[in-house]
């Protein structure tokens, strides 16, 4: 059975308990992400964008409600089940790249493959395919300290896609880059979405970045506010 929707969130709630205080971030959030979607999530600081991304990525668990991924409930998985689930299904792209500074580009890209049973030869083949995809084949042996921000983010993208996950989760992927470099990265995400069928959820503050997505949701105080039509008219 195949499912049209990669994610369905039903009546999702998330609360943080801090001492005696309880902060409610989401209370009854519903959301559907179809397969092949390129979704941008915008919203003011503190609106819960990163929290939502963490819930989607199995980095954090909801306080209540259901998370259905490709037809299966994942909200009640144990920590170690979630860890495996992340390895199999999710590629993360971070604002600050999060590369391992002591590993060169190809070793960084190889990391997710260490969780598979691939031989080291097969791993290196895949690593080089991924580096080629992001145009950094010739930088395979370079250390992170020897690369620019744009190059680092491209290595990070190669790392996110090397194990062929269904979903890419990006938190401010261009937040640390200049306009031109940001555009290159966003074009790359677009390519991954269009030509490789990756479902992408991207958190961004930048309306120009959001324009690369196929749709944008605005998060405010834990709820989606429909600005979609408005955005399209103005574009």
């Amino acid at each position, binding site marked *: 059975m195949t499912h049209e929707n990669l994610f369905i969130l039903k009546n999702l709630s998330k609360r943080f308990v801090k001492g005696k205080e309880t902060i409610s971030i989401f209370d009854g959030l519903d959301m559907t992400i179809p397969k092949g979607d390129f979704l941008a999530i915008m919203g003011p600081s503190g609106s819960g964008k990163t929290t939502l991304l*963490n819930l989607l990525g199995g*980095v954090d668990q909801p306080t209540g409600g259901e998370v259905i991924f490709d037809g299966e409930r994942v909200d009640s998985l144990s920590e170690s089940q979630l*860890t495996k689930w992340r390895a199999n299904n999710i590629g993360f792209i*971070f*604002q600050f790249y*999060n590369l391992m*500074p002591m590993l060169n580009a190809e070793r960084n890209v190889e990391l997710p493959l*260490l969780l598979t049973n691939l031989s080291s030869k097969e791993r290196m083949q895949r690593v080089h395919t991924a580096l080629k995809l992001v145009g950094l084949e010739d930088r395979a042996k370079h250390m992170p300290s020897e690369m620019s921000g744009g190059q680092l983010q491209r290595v990070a993208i190669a790392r996110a896609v090397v194990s062929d996950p269904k979903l890419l989760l990006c938190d401010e992927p261009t937040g640390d880059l200049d306009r031109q470099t940001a555009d290159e990265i966003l074009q790359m995400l677009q390519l991954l979405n269009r030509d490789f069928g990756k479902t992408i959820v991207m958190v961004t503050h930048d309306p120009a970045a959001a324009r690369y997505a196929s749709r944008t949701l605005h998060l405010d105080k834990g709820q989606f506010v429909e600005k979609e039509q408005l955005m399209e008219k103005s574009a």
Partner: protein
Amino acid sequence: MSIFSQSWAVIVMNIRSLPRRLWMSLAMVLASAVVVAVLLAFLAMAKGFEVTLQSAGAKDVAFFLRTGSAAELNSSVTRDQVNLIAEAPGIARSGNSPIVSPELYVIVDGIKKSSLTEANIPLRGLDPQGVELRQNFTLVAGRMFAPGTDELIVGEGILREFNGFDLGSEVRFGKYKWKVVGVFSTGGNVFESELWADAKVIQSLYNRGSTYQSVRAKLTPDADLEAIKAYLENDPRITQEVQTEEAYFAAQGKSLSYMAIFGRVISSVMAFGALAGALNTMYTSVADRAKEIATLRAIGFSHFSAFVGTMAEALVLALIGGIVGALSAFALFDGMNASTLGGSFTQVVFSFEMSPELVLQGVYLSLIIGFVSGFFPAWRAASVPVAVAFQGGR
């Protein structure tokens, strides 16, 4: 297997990130090294002392002291008693005469080379037969003292540690002058920390009349110590008790075993200090790598790999320290000569005895330091929230 490849990858990354925490890591290595070196120094000292005394005692030599005297210095045996003891069962004979050596043991002063202070040296009076009872006795230089003269021979340990005993020199103890005519070795054991001269000469110079202080007797292969004890007890004229020479020196050798205990206590206390520092180093390491740990966890690396990586780092640092400590203890102390008070308040010259087993003990200690200082930080590493990967800052 993924569990190995991911753990191995994390270990490699941790080790490669060490230069970022160079000074803290070196401090941990140093702390571990010092603790291990101190432990080994004490253990080697105790071991060396024990070996020096234990190797002096022979199994087949019976050793007689006045009942209640723990050492030769405060024991005494009259000539008549010597003759009675010589008739005990199980004493070996050469031709018709029993192989016994009645001996005197007096204290003289010498100047230590290391500190230029006075220290006690035993001057032993014995007969040629007594010399033969010592295993491994060899004259390394000069000749044997002539009976009835003021000649003496000097043990190699004394020659090494004290001034003025060179072959041919004259030494003066109190009113009397002696001439050094020979240097002897007994294979490194405690007898080398003595001066030997003719028993009769010492009896007359030190006004001992015809008394001695101890008796050594060669035992026949089938001798029974219990039978000798019974013989001694049954004769009211005899006020001596018997043990094998081996047992006597083994007990004396234990007198420095408190050094080993002391060393263990000191190094345990120091190990706690080192642990505090090492824990600090490791917690810092976890904090330093928190974002990397969280990122790996987001990618799908297990708790376990984060734990193992930190644990391995702690063990490696402590173990490097342990090895450095053991090697420096080896380089500094192995074979180093020392002298200390033996059972009779005389100087016993011995050397620190480093052995593979001792080095192993040092390595174990460092692994314990590594394990304990790694465990709790590793636990923290394993529980770094994955969400940390998304937090700001490079």
